[in-house]
């Protein structure tokens, strides 16, 4: 008797729980995003709800401020550099792992993946104390964008490597052999046969590297000075003093840049699919 009622009640309870959880998770993930989006169009100088007047005033303010546009420029330059460095290094390394016998393979694999599991604060500290005081031929490492690019590559490169290792496994190697048989050297085969085959993987990993660098701020905080500070670093420093809707604008602009990258990946992917189906 009690078992029967138990069984009839359980599905109903379950359905209510599922619905409640669905609402909770959607709300949880969307709340900070929507709050930011709404606040960026606030006209007032204070962060407070309800919002009385709406305007794009803080967007105009953002783009009129040299400090904030410089920070955005630094962020984009550093992210571009990180994307180039980590994609080049990661793709070549993954190719070596795919095609060659490497002594102590597992050891090298662990070594290359290790930085990905290190907290940003540790990597930032290490690079800052090891290269902070160093300058070669009048070029000071500390505060330079290049040092931040390499530091960000410590996270981005293992990720590219992992992605490309998986991508290289999907290639039909008879095509590579055919290229060799037709007299294509290893270098020419790599650039003219292999790379076009994995172009989607390369574009995706490049954009992921870009996004990681664009969003990262702990390493950048340790390695930049006033002239090279990135947008997230400037946001962190201003949040400590006072929050204004300008910060919301900065958040939206960061997110829009990431969104633009995703759109590029999607468009590229669709294009490749069309090519294949043709």
């Amino acid at each position, binding site marked *: 008797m009690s078992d029967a009622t138990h069984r009839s009640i359980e599905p109903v309870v379950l359905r209510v729980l599922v619905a409640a959880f669905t609402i909770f998770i959607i709300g949880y993930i969307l709340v900070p995003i929507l709050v930011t989006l709404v606040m960026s169009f606030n006209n007032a100088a204070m962060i407070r709800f309800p919002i009385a007047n709406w305007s794009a005033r803080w967007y105009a303010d953002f783009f009129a401020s040299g400090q904030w546009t410089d920070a955005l420029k630094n962020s984009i330059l550093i992210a571009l550099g990180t994307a180039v460095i980590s994609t080049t290094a990661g793709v070549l390394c993954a190719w070596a792992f795919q095609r060659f016998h490497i002594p102590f393979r597992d050891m090298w694999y662990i070594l290359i993946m290790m930085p990905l599991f290190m907290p940003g*604060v540790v990597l930032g500290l290490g690079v800052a104390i090891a290269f902070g005081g160093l300058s070669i031929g009048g070029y000071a490492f500390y505060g330079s964008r290049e040092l931040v690019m390499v530091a960000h590559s410590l996270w981005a490169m293992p990720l590219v490597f992992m992605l490309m290792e998986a991508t290289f496994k999907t290639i039909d190697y008879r095509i590579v052999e055919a290229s060799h048989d037709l007299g294509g050297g290893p270098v020419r085969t790599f650039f003219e046969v292999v790379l076009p085959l994995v172009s989607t993987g390369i574009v995706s990993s490049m954009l992921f590297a870009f996004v990681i660098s664009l969003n990262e701020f702990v390493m950048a905080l340790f390695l930049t000075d006033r002239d090279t500070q990135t947008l997230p670093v400037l946001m962190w420093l201003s949040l400590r003093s006072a929050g204004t809707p300008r910060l919301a604008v900065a958040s939206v602009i960061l997110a829009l840049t990431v969104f633009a990258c995703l759109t590029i990946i999607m468009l590229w992917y669709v294009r490749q699919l069309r090519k294949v189906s043709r």
Partner: protein
Amino acid sequence: MTAATQAADDLHATQRAAQARRKALAPWLLMLPALVIVLVFFGIPTLYMVRMSFNLHIDQRLYVPGFTFEHYVNLFSNPLFTNAILTTIRLALIASLATVAIGYAFALLVWLKPARWRLLFIGLALAPLLISEIAIIFGWWMFFPKNGLLSYALLSSGLVTEKISLMYTEFAAFVGLVYVTLPYCFFILLSIFDGIDKRLLEASADLGAPPSRTFREVMLPLTWTGILVAFSQSFIWTMGTYATPSALGPDTLWTMGFLIQEQMLGKHNWPMASAFAVVLVVGVAAVMTLTRSLQSERTSFHV
């Protein structure tokens, strides 16, 4: 054998030797950029950091070369520092448990829902991953305070009569921390669920098991490894993430990451910051090793 064929053979041999050498060298050349990055910008700084942690810190200079265990002794005896270590472990533990619970339910939901919802939910789960941690912090920073959205929403719906603030509480810190780590957990667990045959659920139901029993006796054992990996991944992430708890939590919520930043950028005490970083890395490594051993034990038990 004439001198001419001899010379030709020699030429072939040297050519072949050169080719073999090139073939042996090729993987290293290809790996060179990656190895330079890892060895020069990860290996050297790590060794330098370990060495730095034994240097002296005298009268406000960044560091003075020397050898002392003072910083490590200080780390484990000064209540300020021991508290930070305990706080870090406590935060990471609770936040990871919450992340795994929410992530598990979320992944289960996506797995069970019809396929047409899948892409939408995956897009939703990607959002926290693609947003900068600083933007996430700022988003919650506008939600929790007295004049924030939460207080306004509760007030205008009549649930409370006075403005409330949850800002600078441990609850706010947990909400932020879980938000940052949730996507990793979700994707690890979803990939585990995707490897399970859904007909197992039907079979269990046909045999008369209510959903709760199916969950306990079918789903949990099958996803145990995934839970373990997701938990340790969240734990490692929350141990290293210090900006979120320090910005959303109470002023006294000092984590190891926060103290590293404080010692490095505020107090300019490089040896102390390095000692803290070394302990943090050892902690991360310990969690990873523990997970690996638990994982292999589990799989060997199953096989």
